[in-house]
C-alpha cells in the first residue's frame, strides 16, 4: 500500500517537473515574441512589404529581401527534394545493409549536426568560386541544399522505414519490381512524412543567414533577383543589417521583418502539420 502511494507521489512530482520545464521554454518564447510584436507590428503595412531598401527607415521595405528568400526557397526545394528523397530511397530500399551503408548512415546523421557556416565555406569554395557561379541565388540555393539534405534524407528514411514490410512483400509477391514497389506502395504510404520533413527542413533554410553571407549574399541589393544568377539578399540578412544600425527606426523595421519571417515559418510548419495529419488519416495500418 505504502509503495503504491510513494509511486503515485513520484508520478505527480514528475508531471509537475515536466510541466515547469515545458512552460519555461514557452514563457521565454512568449516574452520574446511579445517584445518583437509590440515593437514591430505598427510598421507592417503594404508599403513595408513592397518597398525597396532605402537609407531612411520609414521608407525602407523588405521587398528585395523577401523576393530573395522566395527565390532561395524555390531553388532549394527544386534541388534538395528530389536528391534527398532519391538518396533516402536508395539507402532504405536498394543498398545492401552492410558496413558501407552503416558508415553512410552515421555520416549523414552527423552531417545534420555540422554548423551551417561550414556549409557556407564549402559553398563559397565549390559553387561560387570553382563552378564560377559567384554570389548568385543559385550558389546560395545549392549551399542551403547541402545544408538541409541530411535533414531531408533522415526524415525521408524514417518515414520509409515506417512502412510495414508486409506491404513490400505483398507487392513483390504479385510480381512487382523493386521500383514499382517503391513508386506505387512505399512512396505514397510515406509521402506525408516525407513532405513534413522537407517542409521543416526548408523552414530551417529560410532562417539561415550565416552560410549565405559567406557565399556572398549582400546586405543591400537595390532590386529583387530576376534570374538564378542574380545577386540577392534574404530576410535574415536584412534583419541582421537593420539591427546593427544605430537609428531606432531600423530597429523597428527589423522587428517588423522578424514578424514577417516568423509568419512565413509558422505557415510552413502549419502546412507540414496539416499534410501529416491528412496523410495519417488516409492511411491507418
Amino acid at each position, binding site marked *: 500500500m505504502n509503495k503504491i502511494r510513494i509511486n503515485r507521489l513520484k508520478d505527480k512530482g514528475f508531471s509537475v517537473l515536466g510541466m515547469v520545464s515545458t512552460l519555461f521554454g514557452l514563457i521565454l518564447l512568449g516574452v520574446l515574441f511579445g517584445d518583437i510584436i509590440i515593437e514591430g507590428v505598427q510598421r507592417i503595412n503594404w508599403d513595408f512589404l513592397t518597398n525597396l531598401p532605402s537609407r531612411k527607415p520609414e521608407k525602407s521595405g523588405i521587398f528585395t529581401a523577401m523576393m530573395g528568400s522566395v527565390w532561395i526557397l524555390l531553388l532549394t526545394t527544386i534541388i534538395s527534394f528530389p536528391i534527398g528523397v532519391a538518396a533516402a530511397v536508395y539507402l532504405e530500399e536498394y543498398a545492401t545493409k*552492410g558496413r558501407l551503408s552503416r558508415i553512410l548512415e552515421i555520416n549523414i546523421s552527423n552531417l545534420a549536426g555540422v554548423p551551417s557556416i561550414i556549409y557556407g565555406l564549402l559553398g563559397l569554395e565549390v559553387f561560387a568560386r570553382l563552378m564560377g557561379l559567384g554570389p548568385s541565388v543559385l550558389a546560395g540555393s545549392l549551399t542551403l541544399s547541402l545544408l538541409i539534405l541530411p535533414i531531408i534524407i533522415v526524415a525521408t528514411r524514417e518515414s520509409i522505414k515506417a512502412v510495414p514490410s508486409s*506491404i513490400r512483400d505483398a*507487392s*513483390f509477391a*504479385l*510480381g512487382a519490381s523493386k521500383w514499382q514497389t517503391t513508386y*506505387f506502395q512505399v512512396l505514397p504510404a510515406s509521402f506525408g512524412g516525407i513532405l513534413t520533413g522537407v517542409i521543416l527542413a526548408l523552414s530551417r533554410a529560410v532562417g539561415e543567414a550565416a552560410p549565405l553571407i559567406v557565399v556572398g549574399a549582400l546586405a543591400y541589393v537595390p532590386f529583387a533577383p530576376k534570374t538564378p544568377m542574380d545577386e540577392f539578399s534574404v530576410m535574415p540578412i536584412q534583419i541582421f543589417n537593420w539591427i546593427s544600425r544605430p537609428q531606432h527606426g531600423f530597429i523597428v523595421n527589423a522587428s517588423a521583418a522578424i514578424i514577417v519571417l516568423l509568419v512565413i515559418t509558422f505557415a510552413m510548419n502549419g502546412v507540414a502539420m496539416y499534410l501529416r495529419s491528412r496523410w495519417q488519416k488516409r492511411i491507418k495500418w
Partner: protein
Amino acid sequence: MKNDLIILPSAQPSFFKSMGSDIINTKTSSNEPVIESEVITNNQEITSVKKSEKKEYQILVKNVNVFYSEFQALKDINMEVSPKSITAFIGPSGCGKSTFLRTLNRMNDYIDSFKIKGDIFINGKNIYNEKIILEQLRKDVGMVFQKPNPFPKSILENAIYGLRIQGIKDKSFLAERAEDSLKQVGLWDEVKDNLKKSALALSGGQQQRLCIARTLAVEPEIILMDEPTSALDPISTGRIEELIFELKKNYTIVIVTHNMQQASRISDNTAFFYLGELVEQGKTNDIFTNPKYKRTENYITGRFG
C-alpha cells in the same frame, strides 16, 4: 504482354493454363526477354534425370539447403508436388516451414544473409537460375501471407494491382478481372457497392479473401499460403478453407499450417518439418493415420510442438 492478356476472355483462368508445361515460356510474349528453356544447374547429373520428371511435377525440389549467414535453416530438402494438389507443411515453430515456402517464389532474396544450395524446379525450370525473371516467377507463383496485408488503397485497386504493374490500363478489362477474382473468393457480393472504399476498412477475414483475390487476378499456377487463417476467427477460417479446397480445381496450392485439423481436412499431401529437416512426407491420410516416424506421430497427436 499487354495484348497477350487482353485477348484472353475472362472466363476461367484455368482454361488457358498449360498445366505442367513450361509456363514461364508460354506466358512470355515475343517482345519480352525470353528465358532460355535449357536448365543450367550446378549438377548436370540431376538435370538429365529430370527430363521425364518435368512433365509430372509442378514443383521439384532437389537437395535444397538454406542458410541465414552461418545458421542452417533447411537441411537437404527433397520434394515433389504434382499439379492441382494441396500440400500442407506442418511442424513446430521455427522448423523452417516459412523459409522453405518463401524459397519457392524467391521471396527470401530480400534477406541479405540468405543463401541457398540445391535446385528448385517449377514446371521444369530451375528458378534459382540467373536467367529467371523474378517478376515473372512471382506472377506464376503467387503468395498469401499470415497476416492479411491489403494495400492501403481501395478494394478495386487492391484487386487489380498485379495487373496494373504489368502495364495493363484497359479499364473495362481490369474491372472485369477484378469482378472475376472477387467472385472466386466469394467477396463480390459483400463489396460490389463499395469498390472505392479503403481495403483497410474490411474485416480481417474479408481482407484475407481480398488478398487471395488479388493473387488470383494475375492468374498464377501455384499459390503459396503461409498460415493464411491463423489470424482469423473460426468462421472466416472455415470460409477460407472452403475457398482453398475450391481453388484446388485450378491451382496448385502449398499451405503452411499449425492447425492439424486444417491440414488433414484440406490437403492431399503433408510434409512434416522438424529443426530444418523434412522428416516425413506423403499422402495426408497416411501421415495422419499411419506415420512412419515417432516424431511425426508425437507432433500430430499434440505431444510436442
